[in-house]
């Protein structure tokens, strides 16, 4: 796995999260990583249909002080934790689907670390965008152009179409 090798190679310095791979756009479609908090390993996640399947190869990553940081950050301030996730997603030089996959992987991590206090779910946009809904009414839209937009449900940023489909109202969303 390309992702696995790259993470192995760049496991130092400890505080470094390897984004070089992301910059080079080596993520294949719907292939993302997530951090398994129970054993401090990184798992490669295949996510073909928006369902994270944590089954692929595992490998350790020594630079996982980050996990503690994530945990602390998510418990103290969800906004900051999310901000980090968004920063990371913005570094993904690939399709908006890949960006969504990376965000989803991080969301799974945060949700797990916070034992469900932080929640996110997925929906589709009528324009092909990927939409994340937060447990407190937040909206994060990853547009087909790759741009990220944020907003709130109560601000009318999404029009309900069906249970899995919304129409983003970009004039009511703010670009991240």
């Amino acid at each position, binding site marked *: 796995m390309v992702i696995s090798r790259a993470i192995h190679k*760049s496991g130092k310095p400890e*505080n*470094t*999260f*390897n*984004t*070089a791979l992301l910059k080079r756009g080596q993520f294949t479609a719907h292939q993302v990583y997530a951090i398994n908090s129970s054993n401090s390993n990184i798992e490669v996640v295949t996510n073909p249909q928006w369902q994270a399947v944590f089954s692929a190869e595992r490998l350790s990553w020594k630079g996982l002080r*980050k996990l503690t*940081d*994530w945990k602390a*950050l998510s418990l103290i*301030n*969800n*906004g*900051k934790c*999310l*901000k*980090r996730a968004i*920063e*990371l997603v913005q*570094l993904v030089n690939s399709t908006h689907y890949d960006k969504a996959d990376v965000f989803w992987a991080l969301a799974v991590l945060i949700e797990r670390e916070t*034992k*469900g*206090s*932080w*929640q996110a*779910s997925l*929906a589709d946009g009528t324009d092909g965008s990927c939409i994340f*809904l*937060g*447990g*407190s*009414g*937040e909206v*994060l839209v990853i547009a087909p152009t790759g741009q990220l937009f*944020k907003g*709130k*449900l*109560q*601000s*009318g940023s999404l*029009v*309900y179409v*069906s*249970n*899995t489909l919304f129409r983003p109202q970009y004039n009511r969303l703010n670009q991240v």
Partner: protein
Amino acid sequence: MKEKETTILRWQEAMGFLALHDDLVTNQLLNNGVFVVLREMREGQPPVADFDLCFFVDTLANVCLNQEFLLATLQGNASAYREEEEKINKSRKLTARYRSKLSYDVANREDMSFLAGAIGPLKNSGYFHKPIGGRTAKLLRFQPAMEFLQTVSQADETSSWLLHYATYQVLENFLLHSDALEGDFDLLFFMQVMKQFLENRQLLIEVLQGKDFRWFSDEEEEREEVFCVV
């Protein structure tokens, strides 16, 4: 033939309702309720009829109105629930008939069939098929909802207290304000949603204690860098 997917009704109105309830605690609780509804519609067992989201958030707002009570009950304080129960019994503004039927003895709470027993006669008397502007609003899946309530009651006392409380609130809302209801209301789906909502107890407790879980509440720049680009 594939069954028609049930949808959400009065989405925009529900969003407007959320915007009106802008205090941190209530807003987070109501939004979380909507989050659970959407998730249940998508991943759980959807309602058997289109679901009036605005009626739901209105009911949930009533459930969450007494935040001290809610917090104490979530923390397992039985006396808080009983006090609220007494207050409800004393101050209920519904018809005498409804009041007499819905009143129950706290001491007999082990028998969780009380609610079904109390409401059953009302169902037969037509209260749950309320005529609204030429049509009749219905509470759907009433009996399965009561059975669901009993099942939950046997499993978890705190959830049981609050689910009973939520049931009381939805019934009251239906009886008093169902003129605003669009379509029929699936009571079992409501209770399944409320169970999911109440299951995340730690989240609710922290929200009620004032913790801010919103994603975009803090726009401040952080000093420390957790991730460094290499």
